[in-house]
């Protein structure tokens, strides 16, 4: 990703907008008794488009802002989302994205990873109450939501950051050219 002041401003707007939308909309709606958590999916997409460093920095910033706005101990959200963004970026740097299913699948997998991460941070900080098995259902359903929303987020963010993206060469067509007059 080519970072110019314009692209940097767009990245900041995407991260701030994503956090505010998550807090004021997605966290307050309930679909099948579960509130979607699309912030990890947004960070995955940023990592996929921008690479591991962009993913990590965006994840850290989104987590920091999230913790600040929720007035909870800082650092937990940053750590989890930083790892999520870094892993997504690392995937992009190591492998080529051939299928349209890769972004949503990665959003699903890394959302599950992020939810497990939030749980692990909380357990490390000490939970003085029984943990319901519904926590697992909540995590799985959130991952499924991320799968369905992942592709839309990917297209939207890709369009917003298009000028900064380094386009990969188009794959050579397998179809043989039509030869006329033989």
């Amino acid at each position: 990703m080519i970072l110019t002041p314009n692209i940097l401003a767009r990245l900041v707007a995407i991260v701030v907008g994503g956090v505010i939308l998550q807090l004021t909309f997605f966290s307050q709606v309930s679909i099948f008794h579960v509130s979607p958590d699309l912030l990890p999916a947004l960070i995955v997409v940023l990592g996929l488009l921008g690479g591991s460093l962009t993913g990590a920095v965006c994840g850290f910033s989104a987590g920091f802002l999230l913790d600040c706005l929720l007035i909870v101990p800082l650092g937990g959200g940053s750590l989890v989302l930083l790892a999520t963004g870094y892993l997504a970026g690392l995937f992009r740097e190591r492998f080529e994205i051939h299928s349209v299913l890769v972004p949503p699948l990665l959003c699903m997998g890394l959302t599950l990873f992020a939810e497990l991460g939030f749980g692990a941070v909380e357990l490390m900080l000490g939970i003085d109450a029984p943990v319901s098995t519904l926590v697992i259902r909540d995590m799985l359903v959130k991952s499924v939501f991320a799968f369905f929303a992942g592709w839309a987020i990917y297209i939207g963010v890709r369009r917003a950051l298009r000028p900064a993206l380094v386009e990969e060469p188009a794959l050579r067509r397998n179809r043989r050219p039509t030869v006329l007059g033989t």
Partner: protein
Amino acid sequence: MYRKQVRRRRAVLALLIVGSFALLTITYQQGNDGMQRGVSTIFSPLVSVADRALKPARDMVNWFDETFDAKGRNEQLHSELEVARKQAVGAKAALAENEQLRKLLGLDNSGAIPGGYTPVTGRVISRSPTVWFSDVTIDVGSGDGVGVDDPVVNGDGLVGTVAAVTGGTARVTLIVDHSSAVTAKLVPSGTQGLLKPSVGDPEDLVLDFLASEKLVGKGQSVVTSGFRAIGYESGYPPNLPIGEVVEAPLVEQEAQQQVHIKPYADLRNLDLVQVLTGGSRG
């Protein structure tokens, strides 16, 4: 050139990880710092505007979810309605008697909010996205007289307590948060206990340490008892409605001395709440 890039990337990554752990260590030990309050103050007007703008869309999504849910619960509610009608007749008589007793005792007629408390109405502007933090942010803060540990209620019953405040916002820890514990009693039996949540299931609270030989039945109401338990600092005023007993297996009552409670307040869809400011914390 490539090695330099890799080194720079690793350095930034290491810095971010160390920064995260440092923030976690510092703020977990010392609570909210000025930086967090500053960021919150800057962004809270933006969050407030977004919250109001997105309310119609949110209500629409929740309406679909609730409609699907309501279809399934329709039959169950019909049977419950029959029972409730019979109970309502008895309750009306009890209310009339209660009214007379209140007049006799010179108590406040409303009785919903204990004396000495001033309610401050606030709107929920944001909510934690993870299941591990059951808390919401409201648009009233220390500037409106809201303080830490103030009880928070809505039209249905107890919602939680104020955990942190800034000038214009406050974080409310809901009664289903893992850090919450409410001293409660069953009515009319008066059996006391400590109400704790089951993390991940906002419709299940566990009333523990039932120091009574009496068996508890389904449908009994639970209200705050007003006394303070050892190790639990937040004090709620007495007789705030919390919920009702939905599950009271005999085995669980005898072996673990606990029953399951469903809160009256719909903690997933909170909108307007009241913070009970002032009053006694003792």
